[in-house]
């Protein structure tokens, strides 16, 4: 069956622009926090919002839009990790600008230790901790983005924190061994 002609193209465009304006920095931040490469971050932003444009009817209202977009960005990012990088022509200008404006952080020794421990966690645990701390999602929101129950979030977060603590302790021990 054919869909009715899109009589509300302007309305559609306005809705997309509202979602985009409210979330573009959040999704760019999300992408930059997970890939050191601003080129990839530009593409992830472009692909995420291209999906949102194509599936605008599925994008929920209000703050839930952000969770939906995180879910999409997460999947796009997973494809990037698997090597399926697509350079989107849409992101050309953004890529060029980020290449000059984005500077990767330089960590002091304590922060480098935490970053290193975090990088050693399995991806699921790292992502859970990041969504909790960096995106500031609560249990309910984490459950939505990760597609599991609040209870599962609680348990997984507990385990991830324990693992991070263990990784940090492990790094400290190894450092002590070296210094001993």
């Amino acid at each position, binding site marked *: 069956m054919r869909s009715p002609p899109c009589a509300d193209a302007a309305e559609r465009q306005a809705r*997309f622009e509202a979602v985009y304006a409210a979330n573009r920095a*959040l999704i760019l*931040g999300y992408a930059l926090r997970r890939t*050191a490469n601003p080129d990839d971050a530009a593409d992830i932003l472009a692909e995420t919002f291209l999906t949102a444009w*194509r599936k605008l*009817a*599925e994008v929920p209202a209000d703050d839930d839009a952000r969770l939906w977009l995180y879910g999409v960005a997460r999947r796009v990012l997973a494809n990037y990790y698997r*090597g399926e990088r697509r350079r989107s022509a*849409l992101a050309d200008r953004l890529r060029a600008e980020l290449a000059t404006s984005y500077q990767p952080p330089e960590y002091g020794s304590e922060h480098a230790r935490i970053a290193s421990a975090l990088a050693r966690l399995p991806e699921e645990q790292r992502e859970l901790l990041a969504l909790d701390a960096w995106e500031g999602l609560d249990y309910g929101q984490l459950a939505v983005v990760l*597609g599991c129950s609040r209870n599962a979030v609680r348990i997984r977060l507990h385990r991830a924190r324990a693992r991070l603590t263990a990784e940090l302790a492990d790094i400290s021990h190894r450092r002590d061994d070296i210094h001993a």
Partner: protein
Amino acid sequence: MPDIIDITQVAPVTDAQAARLASPAVFSDLARQITASPVPESAPRRVWSARHARSPRDLWSRRRAKQRALLLGGPLAVLAAVAALLVTVLTPGDNGPDSQAAIQAVSFIKDNGYITVIIRNLYADTSWYNADLARHHIDITLHLAPVPPSLVGYINSETGSGSPSEIKPITKPGSCRAQGTADCRIGFTIPDDFHGQVDMWIGRPARPGEQYQVAGSAFNRGEPLYGLTDQIFEHPLSEVLPVLAQHHVTVAQCREEGVANAGSGICDPSNMPATWYIRDVTPWAPNQVLLTIDPLPYPASGSIFTAGEPLAGLQDQIIGHPVSEVLPLFAQHNVTVIQCLAESADGQSTTSCDPSNMPATWYIRDVSTNGGNQVTVVIGQEKSVPGTGH
């Protein structure tokens, strides 16, 4: 309860900083370009709500489910139509889209209100197919993508207008795995009054060394590593690499997991740390894979029965049990069968079956996840393939 380590301080960038990394003009330019992109008119209008969403993966797997349904749901019988009418118009020319060779690259069979389009030369210039499709007033732009064996014949349609469900793919499972197999048929049927506009990608066998455009899973049926997850995940590379070699699979690319915040993540396939583990294996080109490696072991992925998956721990109640017993179990765990494959008695070939009408007395031989709660089920008339215990 472990002490909570504050990782906010190691966030490479905050949202506020990200907002300032690009100018409003560049952000607006991206929005303009996105909104100038075509929107599939017949895209599903299902409204997502946080309360109802099971998983963001579901949002993606819905499309995949549709593609898979398209892939194997086509009425193969159309092919056998004896009264088929060949309507190709022969217009001899040189080597262009009107040439004899170009016209013979595709055949059109009109029968019973449908047009069956068979791609006869999977490697021919796609402008030939598209010129021929246009001659038949079919507004389909065809692209052929090199894919791994398990995805040959896989169809992905993006509709500018019209309903993609009216397009039924045709593949004979397994027949296209070896290059140049005479039996290999790839194509689709559409109603002869189809008026939609469609961009269609069809998976074709890759040439030796040709990089895949769509990767799929290295562990799918038909792939060189099918059935080997137990020998690959949770084993160090020193043990895994000989297994790959034994199956004539070489590593074309290497990626490191766990360094996304610290480096490029690209590693040297000829010099991988022997004590690391496999995180993921992605088909790269025929008999070549991309390995994602990790300093820590990672449990086998892709099994719907592993912990955290919808059917965790239920393998013994499903594999080898009749369909009639298993379907209620699926329903109980909100698992939907989106693809059904019927395996032959000797386990050497499969044909598609209707997921909504599986024979109750047949047995479940395999269940694999398609993402979220959607699964592909392999059924057989006997409990297992004789002599294999599979």
